[in-house]
């Protein structure tokens, strides 16, 4: 596929969305918002959670009808009534939450909607050749015959991008593509996107990570509460200015904390081995402790056993050997509810699959660990008023953007779903907070808040086990850092005595230090 830069005179913009308005009951998701994307540029679209970014993109992709407003592509007015029409106009979208068919092969997913046919049959050979060429050109490799559910998140995203390229899209929308990627995958993605831009395609790139915005984009649009609050060429701005426009105030991620004085041991995991869901060894003899008044951070590329470790501690996975000691008692065989009752909270890494029930209300999602407790229920009969009050209180306290907790959870923006999970898990004041990827998909204002909460848990004499793929997050929050690689802890590093580079090497398995037993 050759570069297909089409230059039409007078059509400097590939996309113009003019005075778009979309109102939901109680929320104006887009309020006279206008977006201009030039041909051959990467356009950054940023803004706090619930600002209306996904809404604008879903409108451009034909998934939502705007109440009013005009869309212009290459200078021509168009009406985009469905994703199919968007695709015909050369628009593709990589969604915040992927939209692939999990039970179909990669090949089928890619050719869906544009299937090469020969004598009434799918021309698999032709499809494979075409897709193979794309994968070669952009160095994006995925096994075409495996089923999508077998892929890692990074691979799924590659499939989405291959699909866009296969359709020869000129306009590519990426809604928070890097939220789920490892640092090296992110770098790789940026290379591909730059290449696409240089071919004259236009890209709209949504992210909460301002460093990526600065590294990748040409022009930036900032949204806030449905309104476009700023437009600027990248070259004329910097991170701190962006974050201020985004959140409407200055953000400080350097959160003050009490000096490090660890207390008694809260969690003592000894020699844990466990299998993953496919029955393969995922944890090999992992030991770690978490004490009061400390945050232990686990760094590592996703899929190196962190998920299983968290599940073993939270009680959702039985280890094949080893034991979990919590506040002096062996809790290895106990139920999830027992552990929760005794002060273990858990923010899961995969919020959509495990952390929420999308079809239930926000309130139903907030009361999961309370609904049966004294004060909220008596002999199996629940006090709906009290639970409602509780969820309204949490909504206010955690600034969850929804007019009413009686709304379906699926109406929330991605970052606000994460706030629901975090609100539910920290309101109980846990003795041990397990936080896996706690700031995935949330804006910097909310990140400041969530980091503040994590530090507050530590400062109040409780303990936190933090799992994150973001090295920034690990470095800024943890008192001690453990690095996991292939199911083992390969390094234990104290705060302040290490840096991104060193951790990175351990993460890639390039270095290893004997995991010595800790105090």
């Amino acid at each position: 596929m050759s570069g297909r830069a089409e230059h039409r005179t007078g059509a400097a913009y590939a996309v113009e969305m003019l005075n778009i308005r979309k109102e939901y009951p109680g929320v104006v998701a887009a309020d006279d918002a206008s977006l201009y994307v030039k041909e051959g540029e990467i356009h950054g679209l940023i803004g706090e959670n619930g600002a209306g970014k996904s809404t604008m993109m879903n409108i451009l992709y034909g998934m939502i009808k705007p109440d009013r407003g005009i869309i212009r592509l290459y200078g021509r007015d168009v009406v985009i009534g469905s994703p199919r029409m968007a695709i015909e106009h050369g628009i593709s979208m990589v969604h915040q939450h992927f939209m692939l068919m999990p039970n179909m092969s990669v090949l089928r997913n890619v050719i869906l909607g544009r299937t090469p046919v020969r004598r009434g049959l799918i021309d698999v050979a032709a499809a494979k050749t075409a897709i193979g060429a794309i994968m070669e050109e952009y160095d994006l490799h995925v096994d075409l015959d495996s089923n999508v559910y077998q892929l890692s998140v990074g691979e799924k995203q590659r499939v989405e991008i291959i699909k866009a390229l296969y359709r020869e899209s000129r306009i590519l929308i990426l809604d928070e593509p890097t939220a789920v990627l490892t640092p090296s995958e992110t770098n790789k993605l940026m290379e591909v996107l730059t290449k696409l831009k240089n071919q004259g395609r236009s890209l709209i790139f949504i992210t909460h990570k301002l460093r990526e915005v600065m590294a990748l984009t040409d022009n930036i649009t900032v949204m806030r509460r449905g309104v476009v609050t700023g437009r600027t060429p990248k070259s004329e701005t910097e991170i701190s200015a962006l974050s201020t426009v985004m959140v409407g105030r200055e953000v400080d991620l350097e959160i003050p904390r009490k000096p490090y004085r660890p207390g008694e041991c809260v969690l003592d995991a000894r020699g844990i081995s466990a299998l993953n869901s496919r029955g393969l060894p995922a944890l090999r003899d992992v030991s770690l402790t978490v004490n009061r008044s400390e945050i232990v951070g686990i760094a590592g590329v996703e899929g190196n056993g962190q998920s299983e470790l968290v599940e073993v501690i939270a009680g959702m996975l039985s280890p094949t050997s080893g034991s979990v000691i919590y506040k002096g008692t062996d809790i290895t065989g106990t139920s999830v509810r027992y552990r929760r009752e005794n002060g273990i909270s858990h923010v899961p890494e995969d919020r959509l699959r495990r952390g929420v029930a999308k079809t239930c209300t926000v309130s139903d999602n907030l009361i999961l660990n309370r609904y049966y407790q004294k004060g909220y229920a008596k002999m199996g009969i629940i006090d709906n008023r009290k639970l409602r009050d509780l969820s309204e209180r949490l909504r206010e306290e955690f600034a969850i953007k929804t007019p009413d907790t009686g709304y379906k959870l699926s109406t929330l923006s991605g970052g606000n779903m994460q706030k629901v999970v975090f609100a539910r898990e920290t309101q109980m004041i846990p003795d041990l907070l397990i936080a896996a990827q706690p700031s995935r998909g949330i804006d910097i204002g909310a990140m400041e808040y969530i980091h503040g909460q994590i530090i507050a848990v530590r400062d109040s004499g409780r303990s936190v086990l933090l799992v994150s793929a973001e090295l920034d997050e690990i470095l800024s929050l943890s008192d001690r850092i453990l690095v996991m690689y292939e199911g083992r802890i390969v390094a234990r590093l104290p705060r302040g005595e290490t840096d991104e580079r060193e951790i990175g090497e351990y993460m890639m398995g390039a270095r290893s230090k004997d995991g010595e037993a800790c105090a």
Partner: protein
Amino acid sequence: MERRVRDWLAAAEMRESLEISARRIGMIILALLFAAIFLKVSGYPPSAVVRGIFLSLTRDAAGTVRWATPLILSGLAVCVTYKAEIYNLGVDGQLYMGAAAATVVALLLPDADPFLSRVAVFAAAMAAGMLFALIPALLKVYLDTNEVVSTMLLNFIAALYVDYLVTGPLRDTSTGANLNASPIIPRNTWLPRISYLAPSSANVGFYIALIAAVAIAFMFKKTTLGYEIKIVGANSRFASYGGIRPQRTTLQVMGLSGAIAGIVGAVEVSAVQHRLLAGFNPDFGFDGIVVSLLANHNPAGVVFSGLFFGALKNGGANMERITDVPSAVTKIVMAIIILTISARAALPKLRQMLKRSARGDNA
């Protein structure tokens, strides 16, 4: 602001349910039209179906109540599990077992206190229905057997078991009549009929059905079990992450569903037939699925759709009585009506389900 939003939500809900009702009434009219056309081409008066149903809504409302009772209860049995995304197609089998247990207990209590003996009859029927429903539930929990298949297969076992009882150990030998049935159960165990609806066999079971509907609605809205059912049905991974055990919920809802099915059996034995009769059950369980579906699996709605199906069933009986339409044709007419209506109600549901399974877990 908050008030306004809540008002808006309530208004939207109202509008939605009005819209749904309007659409359903349209479907009913269409269904009657199909039925009339069918009668016409078969050479019977097309008005027969309308007249039959009209009768069952007016002078013969009692008959409608009689049929609505088991239909409401079966509908409730289905809707209880549906919310947890479990499909109990075994209501027929469970109600057969309930009827058998009711009969056995009733026959054992010839001179007991009338109140206590009725309580015993119903308790036995509910226990039997529950236990029989727990078989597929346990198979699902421990062996991951699909409950759709297992509950359906168990229906045959239950029906054959009742046949065996009434031709063997429980068979009434006293009268010499050649009937595959148990002896008449003692009068003190009869559930009373509703006197002002006499001579129909409409009975106190109708009140039981209404109370059950209220109880189930309460269970869904106001109890921890109701919340757990909702959560397990919405996302069982989320449920177990929160400390709810989906397996336990499965056992609970199946047990509850079976117990309600057992009540159907007890009502039919103690108020309608007064004995265990081979094949007394005209597929109440399967009708219950349609009843629940039509009510969108809402317990209050089940009462109305149960009454509606009661009117239909009774209308069929009336049709046979007032015209010379043979019963086979009547059955076909009713099937046409049920298919037309339930297809409309079921289609969007089916589409949703297909979409969901195609997209998987949103992964």
